[in-house]
């Protein structure tokens, strides 16, 4: 939808609606730590996706037919502007147990259990609203939008992401559930056949795998979302102010696994007696200024404006009650996790915090310091992490807007000791998490233009279809800036070094699964600029060089087959059996390469043999 159309539509809505209630970009993201899972579900790692698998196994806990792997993983697609570091560092993810997390979009799909006062939850399982799957024509009408703005129906399904002992995927609730049921069941068909059941009374999940494994998720992470709205009136120099608050469960953590043979693994978290966490962290603002025709690339149905809107600033703050793993027990094995509060993330005393909830000393955002694994009480493995903070490109007043945890080294001690030190590409430093200098996919592009209106790219899942390349916009892509902060080198004690070199993602064809509306619009904007193959956000691996004490080896990655770019734009796969409710526009795209040729050899005096 072009900008003019969008504005006209918004004005029409305003004209037609006497509802003054403000409803703004209703997206509630999960906590900083749970969010780290999302990129693994949207952009799987591995050579077919152009993303190298960078994984350091720490120890697998074994009890009969039950295996609980613990590993550290790095995702090298690039750092998005809004992206928060997990408790293991920016770009890093600790795989240890499991979690189900979600991005709440529009209404809370499980509102009936989160909002006790709600008599009629408006989420997907309860209101049989057909989602906007194709080109959204069906939903692009005044009646639909009026109902959305009135809070009568939901505009978008929440997206759920899961990680169960390393099995990752995503799903959403299709609107074909019995509203009177006490539970909701979803058939998961990849990576394995599982039935996911949400128990409305307990607010918990159970996954039953076809092989007989049962996974129970009961420990909940809560997010409080504050939306602040300020409308400045030019003539009267007055302002209108509004505030809306929502509280929702955004993650459920794995508490217990039972294997087909009856082996059990139990997971404990750092929670208080009520089962909730007293650790508090604040997410970065999702901020917008809507004052003129600069509103573009906005999923319009997320926005409902009061009648007399003039110059609106929208701020959204998310306060997370963070859940941290404490221990895993599995037969003879026990793994314990040790953490401490991240430095410099707390606002200085002389600056009033934007957080409505005060963080107690020691209970702010945490970092993972070490993991200890015991067998029958004896230590058999341990790992230790050392951190610093990334260089920030701007003066830092509020740490949590600029600071990101940087994993400097990892030591894994089993029968042998492995120590790795990590280097990242750092030149100018990472931008503020509120920066508007983003390309269409949310990666940093260096264009610090305050008028470049940017919605919540990281979470809203709207696709930048018809504006991939549009004149006069500052959302273009920049390879140099995307690489800022990305892992560039690993130094191993003993002399081995691994260097990573990146290129940008490209594709030449578009999967039939993606709507023709998207494809047509994309081609129009790209062909007019003679751009093919098409660009896609983020990085892909170009070359890996391994330096050993007496030998240097290289691997060059070729994505072109017979001189034609081999990438295909696809919808990153959903895991559920969606019963005919497709998902053509409800999810992120990614690029898949069917064949990648790797040329390897020996590097000698800078020459590749």
């Amino acid at each position, binding site marked *: 939808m072009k900008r003019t159309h969008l504005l006209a539509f918004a004005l029409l809505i305003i004209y037609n609606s006497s509802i003054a209630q403000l409803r703004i970009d209703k997206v509630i993201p999960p906590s900083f730590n749970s969010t780290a899972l999302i990129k693994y579900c949207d952009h799987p790692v591995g050579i077919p996706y152009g993303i190298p698998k960078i994984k350091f*196994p720490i120890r697998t806990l074994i009890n009969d037919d039950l295996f609980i792997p613990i590993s550290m993983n790095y995702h090298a697609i690039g750092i998005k502007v809004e992206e928060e570091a997990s408790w293991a560092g920016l770009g890093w993810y600790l795989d240890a147990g499991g979690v189900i997390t979600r991005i709440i979009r529009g209404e809370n799909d499980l509102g009936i259990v989160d909002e006790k006062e709600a008599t009629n939850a408006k989420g997907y399982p309860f209101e049989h609203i057909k989602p906007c799957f194709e080109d959204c024509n069906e939903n692009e009408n005044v009646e639909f939008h009026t109902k959305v703005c009135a809070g009568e129906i939901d505009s978008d399904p929440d997206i759920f992401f899961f990680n169960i002992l390393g099995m990752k995927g995503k799903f959403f609730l299709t609107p074909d559930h019995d509203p009177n049921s006490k539970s909701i069941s979803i058939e998961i068909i990849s990576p394995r056949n599982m039935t996911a059941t949400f128990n409305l009374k307990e607010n918990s999940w159970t996954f039953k795998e076809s092989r007989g494994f049962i996974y129970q998720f009961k420990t909940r992470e809560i997010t409080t979302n504050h939306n602040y709205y300020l409308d400045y009136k030019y003539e009267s120099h007055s302002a209108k102010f509004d505030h809306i608050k929502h509280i929702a469960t955004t993650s459920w953590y794995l508490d217990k696994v039972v294997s087909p043979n009856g082996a059990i693994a139990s997971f404990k978290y750092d929670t208080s007696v009520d089962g909730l966490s007293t650790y508090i962290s604040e997410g970065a603002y999702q901020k917008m200024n809507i004052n003129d025709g600069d509103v573009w690339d906005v999923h319009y149905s997320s926005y409902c404006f009061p009648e007399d809107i003039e110059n609106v600033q929208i701020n959204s703050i998310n306060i997370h009650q963070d859940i941290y793993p404490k221990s895993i027990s599995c037969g003879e094995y026990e793994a314990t996790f040790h953490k401490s509060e991240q430095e410099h993330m707390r606002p200085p005393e002389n600056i009033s915090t934007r957080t409505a909830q005060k963080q107690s000393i020691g209970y702010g955002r945490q970092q993972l310091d070490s993991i200890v694994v015991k067998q029958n009480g004896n230590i058999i493995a341990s790992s230790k992490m050392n951190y610093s903070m990334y260089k920030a490109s701007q003066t830092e007043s509020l740490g949590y807007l600029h600071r990101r945890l940087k994993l400097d080294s990892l030591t894994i001690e089993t029968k042998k000791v492995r120590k790795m030190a990590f280097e990242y590409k750092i030149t100018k430093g990472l931008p503020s998490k509120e920066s508007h200098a983003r390309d269409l996919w949310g990666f940093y592009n260096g264009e610090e233009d305050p008028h470049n209106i940017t919605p919540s790219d990281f979470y809203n899942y709207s696709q930048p279809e018809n504006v991939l390349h549009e004149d006069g916009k500052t959302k273009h892509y920049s390879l140099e800036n995307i690489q800022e902060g990305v892992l560039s080198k690993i130094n191993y004690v003993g002399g081995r070094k691994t260097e990573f070199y990146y290129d940008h993602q490209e594709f030449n064809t578009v999967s039939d699964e993606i709507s023709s509306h998207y494809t047509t619009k994309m081609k129009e904007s790209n062909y007019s600029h003679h751009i093919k193959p098409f660009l896609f956000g983020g990085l892909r691996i170009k070359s890996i060089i391994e330096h050993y004490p007496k030998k240097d080896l290289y691997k060059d990655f070729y994505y072109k087959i017979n001189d034609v770019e081999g990438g295909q734009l696809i919808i990153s796969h959903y895991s559920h059996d969606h019963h005919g409710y497709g998902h053509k526009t409800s999810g992120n795209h990614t690029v898949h390469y069917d*064949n990648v040729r790797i040329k390897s050899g020996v590097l000698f005096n800078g020459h590749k043999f």
Partner: protein
Amino acid sequence: MKRFLATIFLLNLIYISQAQDMTSVFYDPRDGEEYETVLMEVKTDDGIESVLEWMSTNLNYETKESFCYNDYPEYCNVFGRLYSWRAAMEACPPGWHLPLTFEWELVMKKYGGKMKTGPAIKEGGESGLALKPAGFGEPNGAYIDIGVDGYYWKRDTHAATNPGTITIHSGVDYITDDHVDESHHNSVRCVKDYK
């Protein structure tokens, strides 16, 4: 052989229904080491379809007569260990075995035969097998060819004691299928047992 393959076919029907993304993970109970696996659909000359589960990373289980390239442990972390023939015959974990000649042939046949199969079975190839150029070791302690060629042990039958190798070469599409000197130290991939 037909009866043997029919058994594979029947036993693997269950796998076919579960193998949506055709990859999995195996944890070696002997040391907790993690191996990614690929479930590969193959077809015999007789048209019998089956699924074989192969490790898609080189075995890295420490045994007698297994070595790291240049005796440097970091090579093992990337390329797995290099096994003597005697060690290779016993190296795979319980429930897994050293690949048999006909199992390699089924894979090669699927991807165009010996002269063309290289790109598909090497890292990045469509088979997901991701064979690596791990080089080989000699009895005198010399190590050769890492980053260039990869040598993988095979045997003709479960009881056979004469060694064979499949060799991948950098920069070319063909592979070499040979019976070789058992004194070399080569890489090991394992295939899941069918019964």
